[in-house]
């Protein structure tokens, strides 16, 4: 078994070490009270949260009331949801009626939502508790988690390093065991980066699988909502709750939602995994490559067949992603860009501005070619296999200093390396899970498993099978102890 010797962690058997599924089952069996887990989470959010700068707001009174109610419902024998009484907190991008939702920005400071995001309603219906809002990159526009207005979220594994973004607070909070899971959003890697950099499992679903209604948009064509949690099984449970058609999101897919947990059968016999050796491995460091090779060995030992493939023209796919992301973001932000340009961090404003210059024909061409290019990617990179294995981040987790100092072009180049393996997947609309696979320079490493559209059950099955033979996902940073 790999990963047993993790010097930086303590394996404590305590309530905050439970996975989300274990916590939900312990509550439903009456082995632990929701109030107990909630008090513990509130304490940790209030004590460790500020050390990592990962919390925006805590709803302590509401959470305590909800936990009491959850315990009463259980003791009365009422039917319980899949997440009954489990304390969660989410990226500050989802609206909840009557609560602030500020998107990590100065511009939306004080914005009070008048409606509730469908994903939050679905979590509420499943019995989950919402303990508060978590930090994020300004307007979800940084793969490092950069936030000039609210300060940087710190990586719980190495405090002077980035946690990954844009769902930076979600990554730091779940990794340091403040809550059992968190929803994030992913437009170019914003769930997968913090998952990889903080040692978590994170799912970017197929575009349209999960409703984006009443979640602040960055790019309608690319945005996806998904979970960051400790295990693939945890993600499977959340996906079952949040996925599915939504009348409030006309882009949401109509297909049935599978029982993702039922798909976690533990082996990969009959599953072929492609490894595109061009493009995606261009920047992979020797140390990261070693972790990825070990991960491939585990997948093979679980029954998967591995084949080498190559990537198609990724310059083309990345250009398509860029025109769509920037044009849609510039459309959303145009009024603020005009009226309040000084209220954006320059690094953030500069990522949106190119969208003001693309001709409409380029934008529509990029949309029109999406099917064609996705077919080609599946044909070349997947080449008849069932899944594609990619690094999530090619290099060791960078320090905050490395990603904030230097000329704008230098910083843009560093950001380009960070998103090298993730951003194209958003244009292709494919589902991807990032899975912890070791440590390099005391920070986590992750790999991605990418599937065909709506194959979330298969990517989760493979991630879960991998986690049966490894314990990287159980590692806990010292700050959480």
């Amino acid at each position, binding site marked *: 078994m790999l990963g047993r010797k993790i010097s930086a962690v303590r394996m404590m058997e305590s309530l905050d070490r439970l996975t989300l599924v274990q916590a939900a089952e312990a509550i439903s069996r009456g082995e632990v009270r929701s109030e107990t887990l909630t008090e513990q989470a509130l304490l940790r959010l209030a004590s460790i949260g500020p050390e990592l700068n990962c919390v925006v707001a805590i709803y302590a009174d509401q959470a305590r009331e909800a936990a009491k109610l959850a315990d009463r419902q259980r003791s009365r024998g009422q039917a319980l949801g899949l997440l009954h009484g489990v304390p969660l907190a989410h990226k500050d991008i989802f609206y909840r009626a009557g609560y602030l939702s500020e998107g990590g920005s100065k511009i939306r400071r004080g914005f009070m939502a008048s409606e509730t995001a469908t994903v939050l309603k679905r979590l509420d219906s499943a019995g989950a508790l919402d303990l508060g809002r978590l930090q994020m990159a300004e307007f979800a526009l940084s793969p490092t988690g950069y936030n000039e207005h609210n300060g940087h979220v710190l990586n719980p594994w190495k405090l002077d390093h980035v946690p990954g973004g844009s769902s930076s607070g979600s990554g730091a909070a779940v990794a340091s065991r403040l809550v059992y899971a968190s929803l994030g959003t992913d437009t170019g890697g914003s769930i997968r980066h913090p998952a990889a950099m903080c040692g978590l499992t994170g799912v970017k679903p197929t575009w349209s699988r999960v409703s984006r209604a009443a979640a602040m948009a960055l790019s309608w064509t690319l945005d996806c909502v998904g979970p960051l949690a400790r295990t693939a099984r945890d993600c499977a449970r959340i996906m079952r709750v949040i996925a599915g058609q939504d009348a409030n999101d006309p882009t949401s897919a109509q*297909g049935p939602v599978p029982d993702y947990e039922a798909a976690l059968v533990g082996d990969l016999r009959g599953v072929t995994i492609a490894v595109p050796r061009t493009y995606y491995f261009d920047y992979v460091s020797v140390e990261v490559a070693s972790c990825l090779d070990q991960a491939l060995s585990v997948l093979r030992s679980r029954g998967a067949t591995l084949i080498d493939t190559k990537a198609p023209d990724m310059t083309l796919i990345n250009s398509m992603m860029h025109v769509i992301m920037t044009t849609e973001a510039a459309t959303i932000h145009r009024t603020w860009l005009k009226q309040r340009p000084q209220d954006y961090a320059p690094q953030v404003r500069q990522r949106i501005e*190119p969208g003001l210059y693309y001709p409409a024909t*380029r934008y529509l061409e990029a949309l029109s070619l999406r099917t064609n290019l996705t077919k080609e990617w599946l044909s070349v990179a997947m080449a008849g296999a069932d899944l594609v294995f990619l690094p999530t981040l090619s290099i060791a987790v960078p320090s905050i200093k490395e990603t904030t100092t230097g000329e704008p072009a230098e910083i843009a180049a560093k950001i380009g390396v960070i998103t090298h393996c993730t951003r194209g997947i958003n244009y292709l609309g494919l589902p991807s899970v990032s899975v912890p696979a070791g440590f390099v320079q005391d920070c986590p490493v992750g790999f991605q498993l990418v599937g065909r559209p709506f194959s979330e059950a298969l990517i989760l099955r493979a991630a879960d099978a991998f986690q049966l033979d490894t314990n990287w996902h159980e590692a806990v940073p010292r700050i959480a102890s």
Partner: protein
Amino acid sequence: MSISTSLLVEFATDFQFTTICDERVVSIRELIAQSNAVIAHAAEQRLVLDDNPASYACWAAKLAQSE
């Protein structure tokens, strides 16, 4: 492909009703021109009359049903 800086500034100011400083326009000009050229070329080579900007969701759903 070349787009002059002055044209870009004029475009952004007149059509987007927002102003970006000349220095910034210069710095992103190359990126815009590059992506523009890549996409335009791909469209010329690959786009057919029946391709539709909204076709992706339909194709992805059909693919999922067929498997």
